[in-house]
């Protein structure tokens, strides 16, 4: 099941609609990293509201997406982690260290807007310049 990726302004929004296999998740990772370049995106939102489970593979893939997108000059926000999913993730020992999260799509967009406005500094400026230098 391919995840639709929408472009909205400078942002890409991947909205997961149903349970994903490992192959689907890997495919989403490749697609997002490629499209950050193609659409010159500065922000990526991955909406996981529909995911009823996040296991170690899903979390690792989301983390990879965020780190790869950052290397291509875009910040990623994971939105919509459900309360039960968060509970199970913590029990499993899974963290999204170094990856921004927000409650829902609206908060995720607000986060990226603040980032663009320079009101949040996620990493040192010099580093950002290198990353954006494609």
């Amino acid at each position, binding site marked *: 099941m391919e995840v639709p990726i929408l472009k909205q302004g400078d942002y890409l929004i991947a909205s997961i609609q149903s349970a994903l296999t*490992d192959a689907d998740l890997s495919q989403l990772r490749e697609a997002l990293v490629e499209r950050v370049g193609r659409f010159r995106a500065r922000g990526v939102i991955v909406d996981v509201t529909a995911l*009823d*489970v996040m296991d*170690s593979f899903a979390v690792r893939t989301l983390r990879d997406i965020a780190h790869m997108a950052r290397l291509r000059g875009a910040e990623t926000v994971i939105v919509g982690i*459900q309360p039960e*999913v968060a509970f199970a993730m913590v029990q499993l*020992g899974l963290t999204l260290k170094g990856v921004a999260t927000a409650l829902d799509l609206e908060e995720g967009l607000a986060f990226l807007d603040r980032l663009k406005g320079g009101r949040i500094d996620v990493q040192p400026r010099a580093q950002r310049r290198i990353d954006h230098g494609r």
Partner: protein
Amino acid sequence: MADDVRVPITCDLDIVQARQKGRQLAADAGFTSGDQTVIAAAISEIARNILMYARAGEMTLSVVANGERHALEVVARDEGPGIRDVERAMQDGYSTSGGLGLGLPGARRLMDDFEVASSLGKGTTVTMRKWKRSNV
């Protein structure tokens, strides 16, 4: 009591199938949605271990009873290489596959009962149970 549900684990789609069937069985048995998620997550980790280490195996999901109490039981069997050091494999961050090494210890934290029987060259059986909380 519902019949056992058997799920062959031979490809990554089967991981999704197994956890969805586990969640459904837990829902039918009256587990809270939080516990359903916990069970599904544990199934996902253990099913992935089967694929990663043994390439194929099978999961049996059932509801078992002990007097008044009910549990969802997952038995995951494979005929893979077995686990050389079960004690070590149960520790966080220990992996021989380049994974995160959270599968076994993570699943153990999620479930109430957790047993691993493994013999080198013959395979591994993981049995895990989540008991239904009676006062919810």
